């Protein structure tokens, strides 16, 4: 049987592990700090204010009505993206973005693009079920 004592010990053990895991993650984040440009940071905030994530994904996470945009910058280029942002599409509303807002969003998408590749075709599956790029 689980005595009360055993339950506390087990719970404390798990909570302790969780706290260590959490703070070790915060303390050494996976990517060492890279200075981000003001434009890219503004672009990120704007991306959130316009809720682009409700229709789009970054690294496959987000809403699913529109395409993943992780690597759209290198695939389609700034000119194409600004055209879409300026006019909207059949589904994507025209959000009346100003030129400087478009620049900020471009800086953000460029920053995201440089962080890695989201395309599943770039991965290989290992025999133990894990994947690598």
């Amino acid at each position, binding site marked *: *049987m*689980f005595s*009360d004592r055993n339950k*506390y010990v*087990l*719970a404390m053990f*798990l909570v302790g*592990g*969780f706290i260590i*895991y*959490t703070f070790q*993650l*915060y303390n050494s*984040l*996976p*990517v060492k*700090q*890279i*200075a*981000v440009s003001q434009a890219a*940071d503004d672009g*990120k905030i704007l991306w*959130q*204010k*316009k*809720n*682009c*994530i*409700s*229709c789009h994904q*970054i*690294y*496959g*996470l987000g*809403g*699913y*009505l*529109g*395409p*993943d945009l992780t690597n759209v910058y290198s695939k389609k280029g700034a000119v194409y993206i600004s055209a879409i942002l300026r006019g*909207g599409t*059949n*589904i994507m*509303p*025209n959000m009346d973005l100003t030129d400087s807002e478009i620049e900020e969003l471009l800086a953000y998408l460029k*920053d*995201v693009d440089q*962080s*890695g*590749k*989201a395309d*599943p*075709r770039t*991965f290989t*599956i*290992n025999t133990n*079920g*894990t*994947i690598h*790029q």
Partner: protein
Amino acid sequence: MEPYTNKGKSIIDLYILTALCLLIFGLLWGITGSLQYIFPGLMRDRFSFQKVRPLHVSSVVFWIILAGLGSMLTYLQQHTKRVIYSYRLLLLQYCIFLLTVVSIIISYFLGRFGGREYWEHPPYLALPIFFGWIFLLFNFVKSFGGFKNQPVYVWMWLTGIVFFLFTYLESYLWLLPYFRNNIINDMTVQWKSYGSMVGSWNMLIYGSSIFLMDKITNNKDISYSKIAFVLYFTGLFNLMFNWGHHIYTLPTAPYIKHISYTVSMTELFLIGRIIFNWRNTVSTAKRNFNILSFRFLAAADFWVFLTLLLAVLMSIPGINLYTHGTHITVAHTMGATIGINTFLLLAIVIDVFNDSCIRVEKYKAIIIRGYWIVNISLLVFWLSLIGAGLEKSMWQMSKLQISYSIMMQNLSPYFIAFFISGFFLAIGLFMVVYPLIRIKFVCKLKQTKSSYYVFQSN
């Protein structure tokens, strides 16, 4: 503390009633969203998917949270046979939550977003929720009566409350540039918090459903048993460490993925147990199927099995590579939030409302009809999302570069099935929920009238 009476129960009922209304409200936006999948550009300028998705997701998330709290509070009183420490605080917390939820909905209507997944509102609206939750924690700690010889559900409730608070706070770390400046770091912390947050509200709800199960079978042994605690600790372990499966394709630290992959596989134990107990479950189900609440528990059992199966598969990185970024993720999320969370909560609400002036049994016929409609349509709903996901997955993996919009057009049969089944799902849920709302309103009205007469005759 005072012994438990019905006093103050109406405050707790308010949590549940509000939650039920939010469920209906959220369903309307779910249907709107699925229509936008079939008619691209529908309401693009006034109510684009940008507003519709958060209106749907936030409403149903608040349905789950508020109903989860209402059930937990009701059962906590029944368990301790004492009233909650402070009703005034509970009422204050309710008012804060209500005002915040309304503000969030208005902010979506106005197109003001904070743009994080699930909590797409401006970040300052998180503050009142956070403080409301602190009140809850305080009230709970003052009411639950210590750890000594407590059944598993009390452990689960406390775990749920504490971890929600922590993960909710964690999900706002992005406000600090240190966490926000790099997308990989940001998404790692974001999905760490969301993964555990879902686990924490599950703890609240599973705890209450175990209480309900005890009540129905009139047997408390289970919730004190060794196996109950083994399951609880397995759940807690997963809540804490399995969140990495959301971000297998993110170029983040590999150890996060390995830990998550390994931990997720302990869920196989849960699946094994369900299969092992199958006959037992079925015979208990047969015995109690005439009890309305029990039916929903039984349906949730079935969905736990399907969802766990899908979840464990999706937790294998090699399979996740295919399912990630497709509607299979949505199938998993909605399968779990409807099939498990919503069904368990409905079972509980039916039980909680059964002591109203009108018994829920009075509406048994319509509720049972709704029940079957919900279950059948949910299966079609789930399968159509999986179908759409599989097709998209083949597209993502194929060497041919067919354009996104053509691929989406090819998926339209799945989306039509998704809309139709979703529509019936909503109708079925309405048939279950409407009588529950009605009962409370009618009883409240009667109560107000009778106190008015008492007042007059005095």
